[in-house]
Each structure stands twice: as structure tokens, then as C-alpha cells.
């Protein structure tokens, strides 16, 4: 695979993301936010984590107006796969490419820890190597990860199988981590080619560092 990894002022997970995909045998390319086009013949665009534009105004609210985001929107509209991790998820919701919004965590804390997640839907290009109901251990690190969507929006997400992951205990029962509506940790768009999640699969590739559950998540895009 060829993976384009976006980079905004304040992004700080771009090298981890490159490391992750390269470790899995793929080639990556950093793309600066001022670029108006994406590299040719790519298989995936990743909007990595960090603090684009210092999280000023709202997390992701300014990055979404970057020239490169226009290209990403067009790429996604043509069916291209896009993955937003953490700040990338915030940017994609602000851009309207994924429904809902991310608010300040309910406890107002920056939460940084390993967290278990339950796979809710796997009939998509991202989680197809995971089982429904499987529990994954993936690090989270965010202050604005409190996912909000209104009741009608939630119903639509559930009906279309767009809920990807929920924060859970070891048995897969939902737990409250940051106040997200129904403990949602990740969702996708209706066409199931734009994915967003607060947890960091790119930080879970080595058992010695706590978990390697991120591998099967990222490898999903190979199929």
C-alpha cells in the first residue's frame, strides 16, 4: 500500500503513523497541509493525531480549511479511504466528513492511558480483520474525545452499522471514559470509506510496549 500521511502545524503523530505503516511493509509519504493535491496512486490517507493549530477555537476547526483538506474531501467523495486518528478524527468531524462532534472530556482531564475497546462493526475496510465483540487494548490520549451526536443521528449510525468501536471493560461491556454518547470511540461515514477514532492504533504495535492490537486494525486496509 501507499499511504499519504497529512501534516499540519501542530501535528505530532505523523512519524508514529509512518513508522506503523512502514513496519507493516507499506510505503508512506508525508503531505504538508498547503499542498493542493494528494500524491498519485495512494491507497489510504491518514489524518494523524496531534494539536493542529494549537487546538485553537475548537480542536480541528482550523485545519479543516487547509488546502490539502479540499483534496482529501474530493478523494473521499471518489471512494478513497481516509482514516482520522485522534486530532484527525476531530478534523474529519469538523469538516463534516464524519457525523457528530467531539467535545471536552466530561471530567475535563487530558486522559492518557491504555483502554480496552469493543469492536461493534467489522463489515468495513478498517476493522475487517477484527471480530465483532472482540476486545482490543489500544492507548488513548486526548482532552476532547467526548463524542456527541443527537438521538436521530445516533439512530442512523446504528442502523447503518457506522459505529466502529466503543470504550469497554475486558468483557466488552461499554464503560464511561470521557462522556461519549453510548461510549462511542470510533465511527465511519455512511459510505464506510472515511473512518475516525480517538484511540491510537499506531501506538499499539509491540507487545513489549503494552499491546499489539493495533496491527490487525491497520492491516485491515490491506484487504
Amino acid at each position, binding site marked *: 500500500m501507499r499511504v499519504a500521511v497529512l501534516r499540519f502545524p501542530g501535528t505530532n503523530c505523523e512519524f508514529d503513523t509512518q513508522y506503523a505503516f512502514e513496519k507493516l511493509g507499506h510505503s508512506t509519504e508525508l503531505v504538508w497541509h498547503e499542498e493542493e493535491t494528494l500524491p498519485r496512486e495512494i491507497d489510504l490517507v491518514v489524518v494523524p493525531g496531534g494539536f493542529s493549530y494549537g487546538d485553537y*477555537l475548537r480542536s480541528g*476547526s*482550523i485545519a479543516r480549511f487547509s488546502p490539502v483538506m479540499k483534496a482529501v474531501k474530493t478523494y473521499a467523495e471518489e471512494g478513497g479511504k481516509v482514516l482520522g486518528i485522534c486530532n484527525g478524527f476531530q478534523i474529519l468531524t469538523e469538516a463534516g466528513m464524519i457525523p457528530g462532534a467531539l*467535545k471536552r472530556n*466530561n*471530567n*475535563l482531564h487530558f486522559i492518557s492511558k491504555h483502554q480496552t475497546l469493543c469492536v461493534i462493526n467489522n463489515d468495513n475496510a478498517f476493522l475487517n480483520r477484527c471480530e465483532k465483540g472482540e476486545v482490543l487494548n489500544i492507548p488513548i490520549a486526548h482532552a476532547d474525545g*467526548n463524542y*456527541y*451526536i443527537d438521538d436521530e443521528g445516533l439512530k442512523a449510525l446504528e442502523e447503518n452499522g457506522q459505529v466502529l468501536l466503543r470504550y469497554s471493560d475486558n468483557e466488552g461491556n461499554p464503560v464511561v471514559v470521557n462522556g461519549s454518547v453510548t461510549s462511542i470511540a470510533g465511527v465511519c461515514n455512511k459510505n464506510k470509506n472515511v473512518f475516525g477514532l480517538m484511540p491510537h492504533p499506531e501506538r499499539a504495535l509491540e507487545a513489549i510496549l503494552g499491546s499489539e492490537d493495533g496491527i490487525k486494525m491497520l492491516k485491515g486496509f490491506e484487504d
Partner: protein
Amino acid sequence: MTAIVNVFLKEGVLDPQGKAAHHALDSLGFDGVKDVRIGKQIVIKLDAEDKAKAEAEVKEMCETLLANTVIEDYTIEIA
């Protein structure tokens, strides 16, 4: 001309900062606090003569950037 924009989380969307401030006020002994909402105020200096035109422009700013209407409401005052 100056536009004062107030952005708040929508009614029904839990405001964690407001809730924390509410708890703090309660524990400081301020009785009778029913609800606290925390928002942000954005003051914009405009080079404009026409009030209605300015208001329309600020509304567009709010819809485009200043508020996320999925979770936030806003008010505009032109002075």
C-alpha cells in the same frame, strides 16, 4: 463597527466546564445556583457601515468557522 459573538453549547448538550464550575460554586456555599453554562465570547472589529450587512456577514462567519452548529448555538450583537 464591533460584533460581539457569544458561542454556547446547545441546550441539552452537557457542558462539562459549566458543570464543574457549578459544583465549585455549590461547595463554596453559593446557594441557589440552578445552572451554569460556560461559552466563549468573540469580539470582531469590522470595517463596515451597514449594520444589516455586517450582521449577515458575521452570521456567515459563525456558520463557517466560529461555531460548530452540531453542538453549539451562537448569538450576534452588533454595536
